[in-house]
């Protein structure tokens, strides 16, 4: 390590010592990053009386072990989990597909002015969503029903008793609105992820295909799409986590209890003064389950997506 030590065994010994210190620090880091999760996990199995009297991160004693909190949390959150999946899966697929198409147009196709579009799209990633909330709720609750009213005679469906019953307060429609919203706001980040990937594809292949008379669509379908399957995996994983984890849009767009998503249900369980921490901790673990599973099975791709965001 240092030059002044003459005895090589001495140096080795010192290196070993410093490496033990290194591992101690890293293990301390392990404890730091895991203890809230571990505490939640342990509290989940405790009874109402034992979670208040035991050390939070200690396992429940044999007579204090119960699955009651987990069952209660599961029953409370299950409809939310289902709604979250109904909403997040199409939103994720759509924004990934849109991102891929946009990145194709902005990278491999060569047209003027695209740098301006790129800058605007990338800036869209960083927009604080508070800046769009009011227009968003106006759009879904006022403008769209209003537009629908205008077409009332040409559309069928929810037209009864001379009124256009736009089902904006209907549960599944709210989920649909949330899904579309997430798909739209996912386009910028998905575009960026695909774009950095497409920039590494050699343009010779595309030039050659074009000389052979391939259209823009057939180039996308036959060359770009098959090449971008690994990137689809990364983007889908990253985007699913983002959409599933969101609370803000759901708060604004979903108010019927039947269509609340998991984060909303958990926030309702948590908000205000918490009485039974065993139930809320079980709720936290249950609500985290989908993204935790994704993270456990696709950790590498998740990390790639996270790093690709820069």
């Amino acid at each position, binding site marked *: *390590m240092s030059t002044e030590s003459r005895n090589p065994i001495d140096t080795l010994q010192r290196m070993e010592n410093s*490496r033990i210190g290194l*591992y101690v620090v890293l293990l301390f*880091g392990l404890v730091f*990053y895991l*203890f*809230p*999760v571990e*505490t939640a996990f342990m*509290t989940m199995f405790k009874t109402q009386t034992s979670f*208040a009297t035991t050390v*939070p991160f200690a396992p429940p004693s044999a007579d204090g072990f119960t699955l009651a909190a987990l069952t209660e949390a599961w029953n409370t959150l299950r409809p939310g989990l289902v709604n979250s999946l109904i909403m997040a899966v199409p939103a994720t697929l759509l924004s990934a597909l849109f991102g891929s*198409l*946009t990145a194709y*147009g902005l990278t491999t*196709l*060569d*047209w*003027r002015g695209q740098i301006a579009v*790129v*800058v*605007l799209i*990338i*800036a869209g*990633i*960083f*927009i*604080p969503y*508070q*800046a769009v*909330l*009011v*227009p*968003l709720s*106006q759009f879904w609750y*006022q403008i769209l029903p209003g537009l629908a009213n205008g077409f009332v005679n040409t559309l069928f469906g929810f037209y009864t008793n001379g009124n256009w019953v736009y089902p904006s307060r209907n549960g599944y429609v709210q989920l649909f609105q949330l899904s579309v*919203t997430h798909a739209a*706001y996912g*386009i*910028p980040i998905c575009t960026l992820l695909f774009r950095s990937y497409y920039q590494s594809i050699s343009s010779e292949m595309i030039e050659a295909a074009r000389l052979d008379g391939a259209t823009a*669509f057939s180039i996308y379908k036959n060359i770009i799409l098959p090449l971008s399957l690994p990137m689809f995996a990364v983007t889908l994983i990253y985007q699913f*986590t983002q959409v599933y*984890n*969101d*609370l*803000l849009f759901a*708060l604004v767009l979903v108010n019927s209890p039947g269509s609340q998503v998991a984060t909303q249900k*958990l926030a309702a369980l*948590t908000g*205000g003064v918490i009485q039974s*921490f065993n139930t809320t901790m079980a709720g936290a673990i249950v*609500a*985290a389950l989908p*993204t935790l599973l994704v*993270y456990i099975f696709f*950790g590498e791709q998740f*990390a790639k997506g*996270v*790093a690709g965001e*820069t």
Partner: protein
Amino acid sequence: MRRILNRLRTAGGRLRSAVSSDGSNEREVATDGGATAAVGDRRRDTIRDSLPVEWELIESAPFWLPPVLLAGFFVYGAIFWNAIISLTDFNGLGEPSYGSLDFSMYARMASDGAFWHAAQNTVVLLVVFTVFCLALGLLVAILIDQNIRFENTFRTVYLLPMSLSFVVTATMWAWVYNASNGVFNQLLRALNLEGLVITLLKPAAVNASTVQWLSWHTTALGAVIFALIWQFSGYAMVVFLAGLRAIPTEHYEAARVDGASTVRMYLRVIIPQLRASAVSASVVLMVFALKAFDFIFALRGDQPGANLDILATMMYRMAFSSLEWAYGSAIAIVLFVLALLVIGPYLYSEYQRGEL
């Protein structure tokens, strides 16, 4: 991409040469590299770009134009609309009176103590969170980069909190910070430090036997920042690790040959090369901080006037609980401007470096 940037540059050069030849300053044209390059490029451009560009644009538009329009409408259309609403007195009933453009909401903001408090909290959160995340992330990245065993395990665990939602982490940390028997207070009790911490941190006029981490104005914001650092320092770690891995091993070897100690090597040789990683990580972290709404909302619901108000939570409360939509929109515009101050210079420098 390089090709497009070059074309933009030559276009700029052409523009400049046109301007300066008007002004009859011939020497400037001659020394302008861009202008001389433009002469050579112009011929090639006309051949290459005569028809195919238009053809590509029209033929490919059905694929990329709908997503671009969708995102453009939802992002920029909505922000523009929001700006308009902030200039009305819209209260959520009926239609906003779009015709009347008055700045009364912004005037009200200037004299609103709650707003300034929330703004101050936002800036403190932004700066403290980002700085500590970067420092911790850098430290952990350097430690992990020492050729250790089980590197994957450490990396996976350190990044794990980032996969959890704000709501989940807020729920977990509410228990960690719990006043009567949360982890922190039990730890303090075990170390016999509780009395000391109470005397140090307790606000005046409060009579308490335990530390109320989340409700004391002396600790609430710090507690939130600490939990957010826990959640996102793993992100900074990943970015720095990628940066470290991109540094050629020769740089380490050269420093070693020069007899630099490990600390000196990192401070003088390695860390200065991580500037790009630090910039991009801090931009993303600041954006996370601006979006910390979910965390605070889950922690304490939609209660007004607490120490924990940031602009994001205040905006939501004004627009959706107090039904002061115009005021909420005006706060949202301030938040947007704040975000622009963060990302604008970043995007500009990326553009200058040809990284976009």
